[in-house]
């Protein structure tokens, strides 16, 4: 009996040892053939997001956004998103796309939206030359939160600068040359962006084929770009940027742009609108610093030459106050018509951005808490946002953020439609 048990035990030990050896072998096996290039690739993510807005019922933009709508103190929004990205390859040509589908529901309404962010066909006759046509999201500039030289792209959302954005239909090319020596790289990117009734209609006036170009140089370890956009649907503009590591953990960057004959509507408190045409200069200076304990700091100052001064914005807020206090529908319509100018993200002239993020905080790997703040430097109103991000579950990203807006009457963040926002999302990549 004992012998039988011993034999069984030996077999068990042998079996366990075999499993352990097999696991160890499996643990470190890697066959690259599973990752060979395929003619068609598809990937993306699905995301479920919950937003709770504490509405700022005294704010100018609450009054305008909820004009003739049921009045609420808070709003809960649920958004389901699916983003798909794919590639189809044949010969020297590649077709790639990125689509975004949203399904949104709140107390007042539900909505859905399907947008093609990018869809372009590109050919690459040699490694130094690529030509493409289709919808493409260009990203010009070195700023983290803002890009004054982002001439042919939709503006970045400073609350989520890394979010994919919708592109514009265009024809573009990319020519790269590496001469070697101090000038390590030269790259030239010409762009033609048409605007008609059904194409890129939100870019500007229709009936133009807008030319633009960017010249990139990597010179003595410094990234330098020169960008230009010709007069057409929008006023002509030009600018430059740079980025450089002063130390291996300390990077500085800057952007500068000049917009010629830019027209902005400026109102007074009575609704008298004047169109001011000026040559506007925008610029940005920033840094990124990584400490030995893996804390990253990002700081930027942004001068928005096309923005409104605190005094100009104050006149608009007074107009809204007057319109709603008197119930004058003409004034309300006037204020609503100015919303696209005064109500765009970051409509002021001077902003400061600061972000600090800690990798693997509290000894938890893949846990990254962060805090970022945006301040309108002229009226001293601001938004502070703590953020918790966890990516420790395979292919899953969990993020919680609380946006807290502070500012008195007639200030940028004090007149927003909400005073607080809690956002949580779970995203699954496939």
């Amino acid at each position, binding site marked *: 009996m004992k012998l039988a048990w011993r034999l069984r035990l030996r077999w068990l030990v042998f079996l366990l040892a075999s499993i352990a050896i097999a696991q160890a072998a499996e643990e470190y096996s890697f066959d690259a053939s599973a990752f060979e290039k395929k003619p068609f690739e598809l990937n993306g993510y699905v995301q479920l997001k919950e937003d709770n807005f504490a509405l700022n019922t005294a704010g100018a933009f609450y009054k305008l956004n909820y004009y003739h709508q049921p009045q609420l103190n808070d709003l809960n929004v649920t958004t389901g998103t699916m983003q798909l990205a794919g590639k189809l390859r044949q010969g020297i040509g590649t077709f790639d796309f990125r689509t975004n589908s949203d399904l949104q529901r709140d107390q007042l309404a539900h909505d859905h939206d399907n947008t093609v962010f990018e869809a372009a066909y590109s050919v690459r006759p040699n490694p130094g030359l690529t030509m493409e046509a289709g919808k493409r999201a260009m990203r010009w500039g070195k700023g983290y939160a803002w890009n004054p030289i982002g001439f042919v792209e939709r503006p970045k959302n400073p609350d989520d600068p890394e979010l994919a954005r919708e592109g514009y239909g265009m024809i573009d090319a990319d020519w790269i040359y590496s001469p070697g020596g101090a000038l390590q790289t030269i790259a030239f990117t010409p762009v033609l962006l048409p605007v008609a009734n059904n194409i890129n209609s939100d870019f500007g006036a229709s009936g133009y084929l807008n030319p633009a170009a960017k010249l990139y140089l990597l010179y003595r370890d410094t990234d330098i770009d020169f960008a230009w956009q010709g007069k057409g649907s929008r006023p002509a503009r030009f600018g430059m940027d740079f980025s450089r590591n002063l130390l291996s953990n300390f990077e500085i960057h800057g952007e500068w742009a000049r917009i010629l004959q830019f027209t902005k509507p400026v109102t007074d408190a009575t609704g008298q609108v004047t169109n001011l045409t000026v040559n506007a200069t925008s610029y940005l200076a920033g840094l990124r610093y*990584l400490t030995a304990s893996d804390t990253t700091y990002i700081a930027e100052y942004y001068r928005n030459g096309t923005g409104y001064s605190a005094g100009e914005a104050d006149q608009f807020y007074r107009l809204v106050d007057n319109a709603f206090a008197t119930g004058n529908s003409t004034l309300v319509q006037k204020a609503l018509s100015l919303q696209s100018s005064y109500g765009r993200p970051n409509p002021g002239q001077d902003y400061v951005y600061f972000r600090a993020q800690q990798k693997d905080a509290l000894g938890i790997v893949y846990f990254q808490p962060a805090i970022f703040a945006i301040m309108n430097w002229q009226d001293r109103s601001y938004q502070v946002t703590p953020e918790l991000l966890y990516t420790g579950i395979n292919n899953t990203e969990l993020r919680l953020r609380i946006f807290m807006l502070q500012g008195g009457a007639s200030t940028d963040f004090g007149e927003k439609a909400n005073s607080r926002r809690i956002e949580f999302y779970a995203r699954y990549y496939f």
Partner: protein
Amino acid sequence: MSSRPHSHSWLRWLPLLALLVTLPAAAAIDGTQILQKVDRNLEPESYEAYRKLIDIQPDGSRKESVLYTLKKGRDKVVALFLAPPSDKGRVTLRLGDNMWLYIPEVGRPIRITSLQSVTGSVFNNADILRIDYSAEYNVEAVEEQKDGLLLSLKAKTGDVAYDRLKMWVDKKQLLPVTIECYAASGMLLKTLHFKDIKDFGGGIKRPATLETDSPLFKGYKSVMLWSGLKKRNLPDEIFTLNYLPRIQELRK
């Protein structure tokens, strides 16, 4: 006449003096040549390869990344993430001391530092985008040991991720066995263990497994596995920021 014996005594010491002067230089040249051979034995100067990075946490849970890597010359490396899905399409580029990360959704390459880790791994960017050791380090001393050689390396500039390396080299194969990485303060940052020598074909025979542990990440372990390593001639143009969105088209 009285000066002759004095002059003779000078001449007698001359060969010894010459030896003393040339000895350190000879040792340094020797060490540099060994390091250059180690570099070439590890990888051809220009190559493509697939690598799997496995990060093992103290509780045994694992996270894996797969990278397609291209290298040219002594200091040009680009690595494309093929897995996991959350990182797919990300590309890191290194040109000498400059490093950038390209994220498809963001679209614009951002500068990153050698001490960061794009994968959240014990391997940092300098390990993942490693260029030739001889491009970054000078050989300060070579010590012959029982089973191999111990090279003491010092970073050429302050921009290099590790200030000093102690590299144990297999004398016969001239391949690294263990590398200890030190900060300028003298603190041990991590140890790299090269294992599982494999014939990749085309005359490339090198360790297929690289394990690392760090006293700074107690209980954590990271493993790098090599596959599909082969020589490949590459144009300079692909090692540029503008080319990063198209790196995946270079896979065959």
